């Protein structure tokens, strides 16, 4: 059977794709939904980290991932990809960014291109979740705490002890070297005294 592998016809995303799309509130019809998501995708590509309502972030993330994935897969000479980029990015300077900055940045990634966090909300406030949507590899400080530099973590404690031990050994070596040199000096002094006598 010479059947095309269906899973390779479209880009495989590294995020969960919802089985049912969210409708949102669109008095202007289904086109308005896409216009809303276009705005969000454009903002994400432009600012690399945005804060917004969770459902919209989750929805826009799928479109942004697909766009970047297509840009990596087909490059900027592919007509359909270019049209999609032209449609989804309302600010045209970002089309350059998509193909020249983001595609090379994510070329060798084997994880998703974006991250979605649940942002804190005032307590007791409204129950609607807020989200932080960001592209990986952005120049901003990380929103998750730096767990590797915590000095109380077990591997850091062990490494500190290893460092101490290594230093102690070195100091002992240096001390013994100095002693040896002092001994040598003494013997040479004695020898010179003997010769002088």
């Amino acid at each position, binding site marked *: 059977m010479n059947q095309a592998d269906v899973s390779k016809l479209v880009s495989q995303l590294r995020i969960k794709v919802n089985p049912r799309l969210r409708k949102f509130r669109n008095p202007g019809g289904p086109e308005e939904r896409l216009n809303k998501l276009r705005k969000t995708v454009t903002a994400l590509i*432009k*600012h690399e*980290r945005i*804060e917004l309502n969770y459902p919209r972030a989750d929805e826009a993330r799928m479109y942004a991932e697909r766009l970047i994935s297509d840009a990596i897969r087909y490059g900027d000479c592919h007509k359909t990809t270019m049209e999609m980029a032209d449609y989804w990015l309302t*600010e045209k*300077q*970002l*089309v*350059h*960014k998509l193909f*020249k*900055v983001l595609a090379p*940045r994510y070329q060798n990634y084997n994880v998703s291109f974006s991250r979605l*966090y*649940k*942002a*804190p*909300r005032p307590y007791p406030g409204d129950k609607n979740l807020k989200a*932080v949507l960001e592209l990986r*590899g952005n*120049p*901003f*400080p*990380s*929103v*998750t*705490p*730096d*767990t590797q*530099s*915590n000095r109380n973590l077990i591997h*850091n404690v062990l*490494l*500190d002890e*290893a*460092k101490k*031990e*290594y*230093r102690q050994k070195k100091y002992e070596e240096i001390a013994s070297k100095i002693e040896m040199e002092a001994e040598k000096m003494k013997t040479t002094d004695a020898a010179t005294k003997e010769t002088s006598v």
Partner: protein
Amino acid sequence: MAASLMFRRINVALANLERTLVELLNPRGPPPDAFCLVGVEGYRVSGNEPKPFSIKDIIGDGLLWAVPKHRRSLEKRLKRKFGDPEYVNKLILPKTTLRVCNTCGDDHEVGVLCPTCYKKVIEETKLMQDKIQEELKLEPVETEVVVLYNGEKDDKPSEFWQGKRIVEMEKERPSWFSKNLTQQTTQQPATTSDVKPSQLG
């Protein structure tokens, strides 16, 4: 004697006849007014008559509320008081989804970013984004943007920054924002196999 007996019998017969007639005509209706002699009321004293009963004597100026007509069952009372754990739980239960942040010690929900740490980060991010947009304007973006703080540009030779879009923040780098995060190149592989512990950390 015989005449008076006769009169009483006729009287009783007449009364029976009248009762049956009324029952025939109005089977479910109220009992008929009692027949009485007018002269019997004559000896009563009219001044001592009791007042007719009225609810207004009890209430006065106040209000009369509605009162429960039936007893409310125990199940219903308990359900209204404590709710239902499956549907609407009215008990105050301890919240088990709160954690203490390892970095700043503030409380936050599980799975949600710590508000104090996040506020610090997002404020710095907004400043950086504004600066980047000020720098890039509407030109096509063709290279990665590198954000540098005060005095960091002079650390490296000018050739190092060639081909990179540099955005300078006119302030000192925050102490919590590690500089290593901005270095995206990886370290050169080591030529020797022995490892010094001092280079691991």
